[in-house]
């Protein structure tokens, strides 16, 4: 028997769907359209076809931004192996204080990116930063991290890595709880070492969580903006930003600083396609390496 609820469901979904349509669905269509136009100095838009895309693809900035975004994402992905080790150590039977560790590792994820940015700027400072001070012990003359092209994005990535480990530890921790302890007991009887158990039981059985985390990391990596903006500063205070910018920073500059709305929309569409492609590739690859029982 199929029950129909008359007008009730529509009343229930009305506020949300109205808001979502106006502020999310319609804007997606609008951005796609905007990417094909150019806005005049005195307002109004002219249809310019694929012009924004052709000038975007001829612009070295696009490839540099993609490169920076990929480098950031690659470094932040290191949080997963780190978190696997941390989570399995926290999962040690009979370990006291595991919940305290969880809180400490997770705090950076909760902290406001712009609020931790300032201290990281000081830590990475070329003249008086702790990083260069420690490098000095080894006779290394550290660079001006924040203002040197190439090094700036690495500094931002380290902050990204720091803030994402905690989240992965939590997700992997709940994955670990689902591994039956009998497996380890059996391995113990067979004389498998702790290290062997880690690679033959823990890692393979965590692959669903690892797959999930790598997708989440890639998607959020492609949207890098907050940390970059907060750690490096804006284009007025730090000219290096142009060689260190991410795709979304490039979008922000075009859309809200230099006011090239059409170009910004085209960048947004490129981000959309890249994120969709990355997700698709990961879903495909998952079938090969994710362990499902």
């Amino acid at each position, binding site marked *: 028997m199929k029950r129909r609820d008359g007008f009730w469901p529509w009343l229930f*979904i009305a506020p949300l769907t109205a808001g979502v349509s106006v502020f999310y669905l319609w804007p997606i269509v609008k951005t796609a359209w905007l990417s094909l136009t150019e806005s005049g100095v005195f307002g109004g838009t002219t249809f310019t076809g694929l012009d924004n895309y052709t000038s975007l693809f001829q612009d070295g900035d696009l490839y540099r931004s993609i490169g920076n975004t990929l480098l950031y994402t690659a470094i932040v992905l290191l949080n997963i192996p780190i978190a696997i080790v941390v989570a399995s150590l926290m999962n040690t039977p009979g370990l006291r204080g595991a919940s305290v560790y969880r809180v400490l590792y997770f705090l950076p994820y909760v902290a406001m990116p712009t609020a931790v940015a300032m201290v990281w700027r000081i830590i990475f400072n070329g003249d008086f930063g702790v990083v260069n001070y420690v490098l000095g012990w080894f006779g290394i003359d550290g660079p001006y991290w924040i203002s040197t092209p190439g090094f700036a994005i690495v500094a931002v990535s380290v902050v990204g890595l*720091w803030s994402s480990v905690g989240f992965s530890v939590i997700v992997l921790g709940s994955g670990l709880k689902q591994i039956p302890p009998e497996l380890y007991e059996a391995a113990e009887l067979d004389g498998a070492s702790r290290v062997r158990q880690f690679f033959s039981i823990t890692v393979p059985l965590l692959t669903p969580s690892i797959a999930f985390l790598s997708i*989440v990391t890639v998607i959020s990596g492609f949207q890098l903006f907050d940390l970059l903006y907060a750690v490096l500063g804006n284009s007025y205070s730090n000219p290096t930003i142009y060689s260190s910018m991410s795709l979304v920073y490039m979008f922000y500059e075009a859309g809200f600083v230099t006011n090239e709305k059409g170009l910004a929309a085209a960048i947004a569409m490129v981000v959309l396609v890249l994120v969709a492609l990355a997700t698709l590739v990961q879903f495909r690859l998952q079938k090969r390496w994710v362990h499902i029982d």
Partner: protein
Amino acid sequence: MIKRNNLLVHAVLIAGAVLMMFPFVWQILMSLSTNAEVQSVTPHLWPSKFQWGNYAEVFRQVPFLDQLRTSVWITVVRVLAQIAFCTLAGYAFARMQFRGKAIVLGAVLSILMVPSQVYLLPQYEIVQDLGLLGSMTGLLLPGLFSAFGTFLMRTAFLNLPSELEEAARLDGANPFQVFWHVMLPLIRPSISVLAITSTLWSWNELLWPLVVATQSEDMPLSAGLATLINDRTVNYPVVLAASLLATAPVLIMFILLQRRVIDGLATSGLK
């Protein structure tokens, strides 16, 4: 034997925790130092004298209270609105039958796949056309509605048994009464997950307030700090003190509610 193994585990975990905590500890220490100490070439581990005055300077040099008020206000309104709209819609999508449900639901959930830049420009134009740039309403508007929240609430309602609902209906309750008196109280844990995640998101969000609010008095703390970092006239310890004050509420909320936050994040899996 086991004890000694655990000692090694503790050693590794403590070393990691020290690295994770270092920026916070450093921030606290530097916020209590003088500007000269922060910038000394050999790092000062400990301020020679605690400069509590830096915290007073925050309120003198930065429109901190205005920004705090804005942050609190937009976060409270967004969280309440998201709970109201998402539970209503999530309930309808999970437990009611209506024509076109699959299409509407698909459209709402498709937003989860779309990076936020794709809708940012037109959102800005809408707020601009409504004359709401720089206003509180402009700041909170798009964030009142959440596709993720709808997804979360729908999943919560889907997992409930149908007997209670049927019984209430037989007693003559209308669908809203069933929702309000019977079903809503049962998903309280999921609602608190939504409340926590949307609080975190709203409190820390940067890009939207940065483009919508132009004056630093109109900004929430996240955007206010971002502009402060670029402002060379305010010295390091004061910016550090302001940053600590700005992020403290969410850090404290997390420490108090850690079990709920961790369980919620682990089960819902989101960023």
